[in-house]
């Protein structure tokens, strides 16, 4: 298995709070890897480290064999040009139209002619099914359309590596399935390495080749979908079978908690 990303001994903090507790994992290239885990377990935090937005307390993050945690800004920007990110809230620039948003990375990083850029932008918008919305502002789009526009922007420079933070959260099942299909297409047609953070199970079973599961800042599983289904780890079973966490307090403890001491 060829590795696109390798994380070794990553420890991260927000202030004094430890979020990721010495995790190691690797992400295969040319495949779709899903990072699973309950709310607040540190998925978005991990993603922000993978794209170099946050610096870890300790540990290495190798992308194509190079450690991004020790890179200078200029080197890091070179790496970033070859990756695309779709943020949880799409993060389109609100002061620009959809086509300007998609054109932005192309304008900033290449010296192509304006007519060429226009063609590239139209191709990307067509790919995500947003032809004809070129001149709309992000505030005039629905949530699902924003995500698709964000995806078009993430793909503008034909990256080798693309990250999605909860692509289908807050979308209706039909739109979510459409987005999943698009993700499959990216892998099959463009041979991209795709990393998806999600907790939507139907989506996981549709798109994942490889699954990494986080729980309270630790990696508790990594392997293929079949291995995930066969796992007998109770935390994983709980997640897959959508069982709530057990009531762990005794009545006396509960009383003490709500009484506040």
């Amino acid at each position, binding site marked *: 298995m060829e590795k696109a990303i390798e994380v070794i001994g990553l420890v991260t903090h927000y202030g004094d709070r430890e979020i990721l507790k010495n995790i190691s994992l690797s992400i295969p290239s040319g495949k779709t890897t899903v990072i699973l885990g309950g709310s607040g377990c540190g998925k978005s935090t991990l993603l922000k480290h993978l794209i170099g937005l946050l610096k870890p307390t300790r540990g290495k993050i190798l992308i194509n064999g190079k450690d991004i945690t020790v890179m200078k800004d200029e080197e*890091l920007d070179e790496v970033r040009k070859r990756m695309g*990110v779709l*943020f949880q*809230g799409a993060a389109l*620039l*609100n*002061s620009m139209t959809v086509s300007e948003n998609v054109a*932005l990375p192309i304008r900033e990083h290449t010296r192509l002619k304006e007519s060429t850029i226009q063609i590239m932008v139209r191709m990307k918008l067509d790919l995500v099914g947003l032809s004809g919305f070129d001149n709309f502002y992000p505030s005039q789009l629905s949530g699902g359309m924003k995500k698709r526009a964000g995806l078009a*922007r993430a793909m503008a420079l034909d990256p080798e590596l693309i990250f999605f933070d909860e692509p289908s959260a807050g979308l209706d099942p039909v739109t979510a399935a459409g987005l999943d299909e698009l993700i499959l297409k990216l892998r099959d047609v463009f041979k991209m390495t795709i990393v998806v953070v999600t907790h939507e199970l139907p989506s996981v079973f549709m798109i994942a080749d490889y699954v990494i599961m986080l729980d309270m800042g630790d990696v508790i599983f990594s392997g293929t979908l079949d291995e995930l289904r066969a796992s007998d780890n109770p935390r994983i079973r709980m997640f897959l079978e959508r069982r709530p966490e057990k009531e762990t307090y005794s009545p006396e403890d509960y009383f003490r908690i709500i009484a506040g001491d």
Partner: protein
Amino acid sequence: MPSTTENLFGLIGRRAIPILKDINDAARLINNTFYWAFLSPFKGKAIRFRASMSEMVKAGYSSVPIVATISLFVGIILALQSAYQLKRVGALIYVANLVGVSITRELGPILTAIIVSGRSGSAFAAEIGSMKAAEEVDALISMGINPVRFLVVPKLIALMVMLPALTVFSDLIGIFGGFLLSITALEIHPYNYFQQTIRALLIKDILTGLMKAWAFGVVITIVGAYQGFKVEGGAEEVGMRTTASVVASIFLVIVFDLFFTTLFYYFT
């Protein structure tokens, strides 16, 4: 008593560390802004020219009416106030000197800077702050676009050009206000007033005023951007930071004014 000393140092530390961090953040922002504005263009990373132009229109052109009105009124007020004293010694013509010098050296730059702090400084903080809250700044970084170069430098260029320009305009209108009042209410002959103003004004007075205006432009941009980048939470914090940026930039503009005025007093 070790525990008391410990507490004391703990207290000082808890107060001082965030302040040191703020100073460090501000210094980094200033450093980055100047790097991307003045050094990187020579390394092939050009300034965003069109964005700078549109910031100039927003910050400069749109402030013209309010700067004009306030400068006109202040010119009139200044003429009235000085006439009140000069009339007694029969030196009414010196109204022209007083109005001309105090407007070009002091009131033109500072009034313009205060108006621009309120209009543009707050707009910078609000714009960058809401982009930070909506992960737009993170998105820029993830695309390999430096947010300081993308967002702050065009604003800096705009204010470095527009604040001196607005100040010249404010000087002219302010002097015109004094002129209007003097030739009507004070019955000074227009030609005499004009001659007296020309004689009173030194190039030096106008230039020091413009240098101050330039520095105020830098201060207002940095304060607005700094407060904007500080936003971590949501919309509520954007509002708070916007207010803070206006207060801080007016305060710093006056501090810098004091500094420059002292400097010019001794060295020109």
